[in-house]
């Protein structure tokens, strides 16, 4: 193991730790300070906290892995990123105004309050959203850990195991998240975002140049030797052509899900003002350009000659097999860790905040003082990190596939969240019924075919037919979700007595009443 590589990685981790630990020193001691940064985050940090949170180990390792194995299938990631954040231009400012008026710091408490946080449907919504968020976040956080572990394992030639690499990296993350909350996440994300952008572009141009003589020359060879990889929609992991229905479904579900991730709403509650949020959305597509060099790296691996154990390892695998200067390998390593940590820290912080605020306080009517709440969020951060760590040890499929499954769950929030912020004629029972049904359909369709045949007694052909719906599980669940939301809301309108509260809530959201 090169001392230069170790030195760069250690220096990087120490810098992250210092930035993260110092960032929280001015924040308030209550949950608003820890979870929402006292609602003071400006454009620079907001840009990186949203961008770096989403561009993660999945982008740094998963995207090259998909380009290497599946070719143009990887373009789906760029496609959804173009449009995915635009709904937040409209939803984010509404949430931010409500956050200032009502003191929200999580998405679910906003939804629950709209439909009566003391009512059974309001509390049910808070509980279901807390559970679904956690179920979606744990694998997402596991992706980041797996990415960090792969990087450290590869660049140390196996001397540091994947499990130990993930533990070391997330030990640092735990320290600054526990100390500084969202401000620690924000300022480290800014540093990490700048760092990984520079590394991605540097390597994305350097590797094709070293291996092929340039990007154009690389695609010349690929067009002759592996043309099937260059034509969209690319290939599946089995090497057979992907189809346009599944490509389009992956893009559409990611576009819908992108803007309703609970941690994005927590950023809305943290923002200094609505103008900052809107500017962040306007600037956001520029983050997509950072993905292009990572995709080039994946394509550079196709004709590399040697084969990694897993496609997700292609980038570090090439680096350690090219006799590159240790400085280059060390900087890549730090960049990839930045990608992993910049998402993982936010995931851990968000899911813990949601479980305590929504699961315990809103849904279960738990009573906690400001200090106790902050303490319990910290305890749950540790538990979430441990759960994700255990999960990552057992996950064997690709990083991108894991993210797609997470999107299937999180898009079920979209109808309820949009209705909460924009529609008057919906009821809590409608939103809750739709959410539960959408999640149930999603889970049923994602189950392995063997469960349908062995446990439900279906013939193998029927079980296989259900299995073919798996790529569309989230969207089918979403259709059921929307239908039931509309139907139950229409039936329940006559009994609703909360029209005045809803009207006031929506007026604040639309900026019709000063949130202060």
């Amino acid at each position, binding site marked *: 193991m090169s001392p230069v590589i170790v030195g760069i990685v250690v220096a990087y981790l120490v810098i992250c730790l210092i930035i993260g630990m110092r960032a929280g020193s001015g924040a308030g001691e209550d949950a608003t300070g820890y979870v929402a940064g006292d609602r003071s985050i400006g454009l620079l940090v907001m840009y990186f906290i949203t961008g770096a949170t989403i561009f993660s180990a999945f982008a740094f390792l998963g995207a090259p892995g998909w380009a290497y194995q599946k070719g*143009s299938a990887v373009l789906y990631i760029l496609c959804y990123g173009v*449009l995915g954040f635009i709904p937040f231009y409209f939803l984010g400012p509404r949430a931010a105004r409500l956050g200032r008026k009502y003191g929200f710091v999580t998405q679910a408490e906003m939804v629950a309050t709209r439909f009566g946080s003391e009512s059974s449907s309001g509390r049910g919504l808070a509980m279901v959203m807390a559970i679904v968020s956690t179920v979606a976040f744990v694998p997402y956080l596991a992706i980041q850990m797996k990415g960090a572990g792969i990087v450290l394992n590869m660049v140390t030639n196996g001397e540091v195991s994947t499990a130990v690499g993930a533990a070391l990296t997330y030990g640092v993350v735990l320290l600054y998240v526990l100390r500084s909350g969202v401000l620690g996440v924000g300022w480290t994300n800014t540093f990490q975002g700048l760092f990984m952008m520079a590394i991605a572009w540097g390597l994305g141009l350097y590797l094709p140049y070293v291996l092929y003589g340039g990007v154009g020359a690389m695609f010349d060879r690929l*067009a002759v030797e592996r043309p099937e990889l260059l*034509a969209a929609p690319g290939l599946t992991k089995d090497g057979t052509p992907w189809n*346009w229905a599944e490509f*389009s479904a992956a893009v559409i579900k990611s576009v819908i899900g992108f803007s309703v991730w609970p941690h994005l709403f927590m950023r809305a509650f943290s923002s200094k003002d609505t103008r900052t949020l809107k500017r962040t959305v306007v600037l956001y597509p520029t983050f997509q350009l950072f993905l292009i060099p990572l995709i080039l790296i994946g394509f550079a691996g196709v004709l590399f000659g040697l084969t990694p154990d897993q496609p997700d390892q292609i980038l570090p695998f090439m680096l350690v097999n090219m006799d590159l200067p240790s400085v280059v390998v060390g900087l890549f390593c730090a960049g990839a860790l930045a990608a992993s940590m910049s998402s993982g820290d936010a995931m851990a912080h968000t899911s813990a905040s949601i479980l305590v605020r929504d699961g315990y306080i809103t849904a279960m009517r738990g009573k906690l003082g400001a200090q106790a709440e902050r303490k319990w969020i910290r305890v749950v951060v540790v538990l979430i990190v441990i759960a994700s760590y255990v999960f990552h040890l057992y996950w064997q499929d690709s990083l991108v596939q894991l993210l797609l499954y997470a999107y299937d769950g999180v898009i079920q929030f979209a109808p309820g969240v949009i209705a909460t912020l924009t529609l008057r004629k919906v009821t809590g029972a409608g939103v809750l019924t739709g959410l539960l049904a959408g999640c149930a359909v999603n889970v049923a369709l994602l189950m392995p075919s063997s469960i349908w045949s062995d446990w439900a007694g279906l013939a193998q052909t029927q079980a296989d037919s259900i299995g073919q719906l798996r790529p569309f599980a989230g969207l089918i669940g979403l259709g059921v979700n929307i239908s039931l939301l509309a139907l139950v809301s229409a039936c329940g309108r006559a009994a609703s007595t909360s029209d005045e509260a809803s009207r006031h809530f929506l007026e604040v959201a639309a900026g019709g009443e000063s949130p202060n």
Partner: protein
Amino acid sequence: MTKNRPLIHICFGLYLILALLSLVWPGMAWIGSRLEPRILGLPPGVMWVAFWVVATCLVLFVYHRATGGEELE
């Protein structure tokens, strides 16, 4: 105040629909499944998506300015 100009909102909505249809089937199938022509050495599919990234950024910027997005509340 230009917040309530319906034409801007309609044009923006139409742009979003066009962009979506360009990035999934049929738009992406039409451009992305080709191998030529290559621009700056990149396959048409990659350039097509890069074009929509830049175009969306510009359109969002115009929409933001035209609808009073820079106003402080």
